[in-house]
């Protein structure tokens, strides 16, 4: 399953890196603590968070995550979008809150 499949099935907005939606997704990780994600997320996972600042891109890139999904209608900061495009790691968004999104995502990629 890739990022595009997930974006379509969950009707997610694609904010950036539209040409990198073929990235393979191996699982998911939900956390708003950057150190937790650094320490425990695995390569290829899709990251659910409400953090919107550009440091999420640094973490996603260092951990080789597949993509980031922002919850509750949050939108990425401008410099987050730029970095997302540079790194080729998509930032997606949804109006769902984290619990609901995680549940749906778990169902389709478990």
């Amino acid at each position, binding site marked *: 399953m890739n990022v595009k499949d997930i974006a379509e099935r969950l009707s997610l907005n694609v904010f950036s890196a539209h040409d990198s939606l073929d990235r393979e997704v191996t699982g998911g990780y939900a956390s708003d603590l950057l*150190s*937790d994600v650094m320490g425990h997320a695995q390569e290829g996972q899709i990251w659910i968070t409400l953090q919107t600042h550009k*440091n999420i891109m*640094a*973490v996603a890139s*260092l951990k080789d995550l597949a993509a980031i999904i922002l919850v509750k209608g949050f939108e990425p900061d401008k410099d987050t979008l730029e970095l997302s495009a540079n790194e080729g790691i998509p930032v997606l968004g949804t109006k769902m809150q984290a619990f609901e999104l995680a549940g749906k995502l778990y169902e389709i990629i478990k």
Partner: protein
Amino acid sequence: MNLEFKVDGGDFTVAGNASSQIKKMLKQLNVDPRIVKRVVIALYEAEVNIVAHAYRGVIYAEIDSRGVRLRLEDEGPGIPDIEQAMTPGFSTASAQVREMGFGAGMGLPNISENADEFKIESEVGKGTTLWINYKF
């Protein structure tokens, strides 16, 4: 190979840049991906610690056939009680830093868990130095 990166305290817009450069270099040198992953976790945490707590710092990275050796020297307030600072969950980060999802008291434990060798020395009012080493 010896690399050196300057890190400014307080500037979160560039936090992770040095870690990203060193990661690229390790990949180019075909270092075992399992080691690269551990280096990246420890190094990013240590880099963010300089940004979050110190005035400025320098990251020195030495990479050769024996392993990777990192030294992070900062000028900053120092750590009065290292044992307390190493306790998971303990943090002195500002409210602003915490709102960004940093400062959860996981940094030093993450570094320690992801290093082959880890040493920390600190002098209050002067600064802190970390040594983080990996053997191939």
